[in-house]
């Protein structure tokens, strides 16, 4: 334990981006930078390989579900081998930050990403985003679609909706709603939508297929699954609310952070910087159909540009406020 404290005390401090890599005689220098990745291998595995070749930094990526990896990291505490956590949902980065598990990132690094899409205290930075949208069956005329997220509570949608209350993005979005609308209004809205008996899905992606087959008319999802699926004649499409700042128009972030106490801070920050640089940001946009967080990078031509989304004003801390959201969902019997 003492030696551990010593290690942390010696190597833990944040350093600048161009600081030399650790001394060659340091025993830790040989080991790879360990990344706990809640983002799937199919999304980021290729990027990590390219990055290793370009930066000359060895990384060891351990994939898993974001919530489980965060639980693992919280359990391991100071003994955690993780240097970087790459989370699918920024809310979980907030949870780690709240527990003092994340180091403050280099200011120059943070400047490369849109200030809206990072932690206010600089402990994590968003690497790409997914828009919350409705996915609908295209037999439904577009002018009959709800004009606001609130309209999903309309009884005319009874038996036609799908949602995934166990999903991370769903819960983060409801957390945002609690701050935008207030607790009571959110609770009332959830109750009313639940009264419409939406089909409950374990995750987002099956809703897209269900909208295509007509099993549901409208699902509440993230935007990018559709683009993976879409072919000529595909009978589902995405829909964002037309009203400026509608509470339904929210961007969910995937993000990266460095573990407080990591002995590989400079290399870890180089890895994050690489993910925020143009090539990686272009890959997120073009190959994954996501929204880049670096300003000036174009989205995929099939994906509406970020400025057309009319996003609601959301503080990142709201998305991490998951505890009361889970309590509310449990109280309402939705979870």
């Amino acid at each position, binding site marked *: 334990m003492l030696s551990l404290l010593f290690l942390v005390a010696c190597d833990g401090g944040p350093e600048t981006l161009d600081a030399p890599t650790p001394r060659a005689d340091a025993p830790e220098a040989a080991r790879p930078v360990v990344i706990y990745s809640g983002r799937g291998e199919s999304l980021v595995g290729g990027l990590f390989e390219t990055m290793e070749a370009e930066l000359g930094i060895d990384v060891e990526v351990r994939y898993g579900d974001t919530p489980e990896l*965060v639980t693992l990291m919280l359990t391991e505490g100071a003994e955690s081998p993780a240097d970087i956590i790459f989370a699918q949902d920024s809310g979980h980065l907030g949870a780690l930050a709240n527990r003092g598990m994340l180091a403050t990132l280099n200011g120059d690094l943070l400047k490369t990403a849109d200030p809206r899409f990072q932690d206010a205290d600089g402990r994590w930075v968003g690497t790409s985003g997914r828009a919350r949208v409705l996915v609908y069956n295209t037999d439904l005329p577009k002018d009959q679609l709800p004009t606001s997220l609130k309209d999903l509570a309309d009884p005319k949608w009874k038996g036609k909706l799908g949602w995934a209350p166990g999903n991370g993005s769903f819960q983060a979005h409801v957390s945002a709603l609690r701050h935008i609308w207030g607790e009571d209004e959110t609770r009332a809205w959830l109750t009313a939508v639940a009264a419409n008996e939406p089909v409950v899905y374990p995750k987002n992606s099956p809703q897209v297929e269900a909208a295509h087959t007509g099993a549901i008319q409208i699902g509440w999802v993230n935007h990018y699954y559709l683009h993976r699926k879409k072919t000529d004649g595909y009978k589902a499409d995405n829909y964002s609310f037309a009203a400026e700042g509608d509470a339904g128009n929210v961007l969910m972030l995937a993000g990266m952070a460095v573990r407080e106490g990591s002995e590989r801070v400079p290399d870890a920050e180089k890895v994050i910087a690489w993910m925020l640089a143009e090539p990686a940001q272009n890959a997120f946009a073009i190959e994954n159909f996501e929204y880049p967080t670096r300003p000036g990078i174009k989205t995929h031509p099939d994906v509406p540009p970020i400025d057309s989304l009319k996003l609601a004003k959301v503080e990142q801390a709201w998305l991490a406020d998951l505890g009361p959201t889970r309590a509310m969902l449990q109280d309402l019997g939705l979870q």
Partner: protein
Amino acid sequence: MSASRLLAAATALLVVSPLVGLLVGLANPPPDPFGMPQLSLVELMQRSRALELLRNSVLLSVAVSAGAVVAGGWLAWAEQRLDYPGRSVLATLSLLPLASPSYLVAATAAVAFSPGGFVGDLLGLPRLSGLWIAALVLAVVCAPYVQLLVGAALARCPAAEEEAARSLGASPLQAARIAVLPRLRPAIALSALISLLYAISDFGAVAVLDCPVLTWRLYEAVKGQQLPQATLLGLAVMAVTLPLFVVGRLVHGARPQRGTANPRPPERRRPGAAALAGTYLLHGLVIGIGVALPVATMGGWVWGGIVRDLPFASPWLATRDTLLAALIGALLTGLLAVSPAWVAARDRRAVAVPVEQATLLTSALPGVLLALGLVLAALQLSRSMPDGRAVYAALTGSGVLLMAGYAVRFLAEGFAALKTAILQLDPRQEESARVLGASRARWLRQIALPALAPGVAASGLLLFLAILKELPVTLLLGGAVGLKTLAFRVWDRYNEALWHDAGLSGLILLGLSLCVVVATLRWRRHV
């Protein structure tokens, strides 16, 4: 005998270590990362409607167990005792759901049976969900366990006893009850118990089918970084399981069964029309839901990917990792299961009961909680050592923790098959061998081991297949070893809606299992 007890005690210690880790974690709960107050057990029970979930869990697992025993038991009987066209092929195919991960079966069944799916549209079904569908899917997945274990016991039932009963005027049914059932009781009880544990610890199928049971809430608690609450719910799961063990003992019978060496199997009978129709229906149900539907669905995904010219990831490394993990894991877990199985089958009851219960205790816990429990136990251990961080890194990086995870998760499965085999050793042969001056080692080598071979094969097969499709333990503990298995691929690609790539890995996984099952069955027949 003391050596086997010592080994059994060491194994039991390993099995309960994640529990100890979790309990220590429960004693010093970390603050909630979302700043929520820590709930007491009572509050937690109320908030999560734990009693309702508990009732559902018990209902589900009892239904699964009963369904699996009836279906698997009948199929075992049909395989061993009946003569009908296609028997051998159908019996083998009916074992294949062993290879299908429950979440995959549930996912494909849910799609096929719901509106828009081909079965759902054909029969005009409403959207299915809830306990009974989960019970059907899990019973289909568990039935092969029963077929395998009961089948092995049936194969070792001597015809002489049945014929004696018949010659004394018993009807075929009476003869089966008097002469066969007592010999099958250990196998039935243990396979029922395995199905029960499988159903109560499964969360994949219940998650896909939106079925409110205890493990589902427990998983949510892990996802919500509320490990203390997950531990409490885990303890509740185990509390439910303990009385089931007692029931298992009662069904099992008070005394170890006496086996017979080189049993002569009875003649196969031709079943009547109703029995034949029922047998084919059961085969169809198990093969259809458990294998054909997942294969057809995944084949469709792969075909869709080929048509749309989507890129597929090379599956070779994942296949190699899968085989490595399953081979080493099955070998180690099988070895670990030997001493407790020996003690439980042959030692005095006073020792046998706690050994058996310790062995089975943690199998009711879902993999994700066991893995975190092992992490906690490893952390406790390494923090008590001088260079704790290095010790912890060594434990995780060397794969020790991963293999411990497989052992803890699946020991019950290896144990059950081994114990039934050991129970069926013929004590008269042992006595004869000793009287004739053979050493214990020689008896073991020349008599016991050959007789145990089918049981060992069954045990190894079950373990290999279990690890082949395992996911949560591999995800949490296998990352440190750099392991990326086919099950990981399926999960990773399915999560990202890359169905074509998920389908390819899933089909290879099923193909591998098919080879294993067929090879082992052939080998079993030659013994």
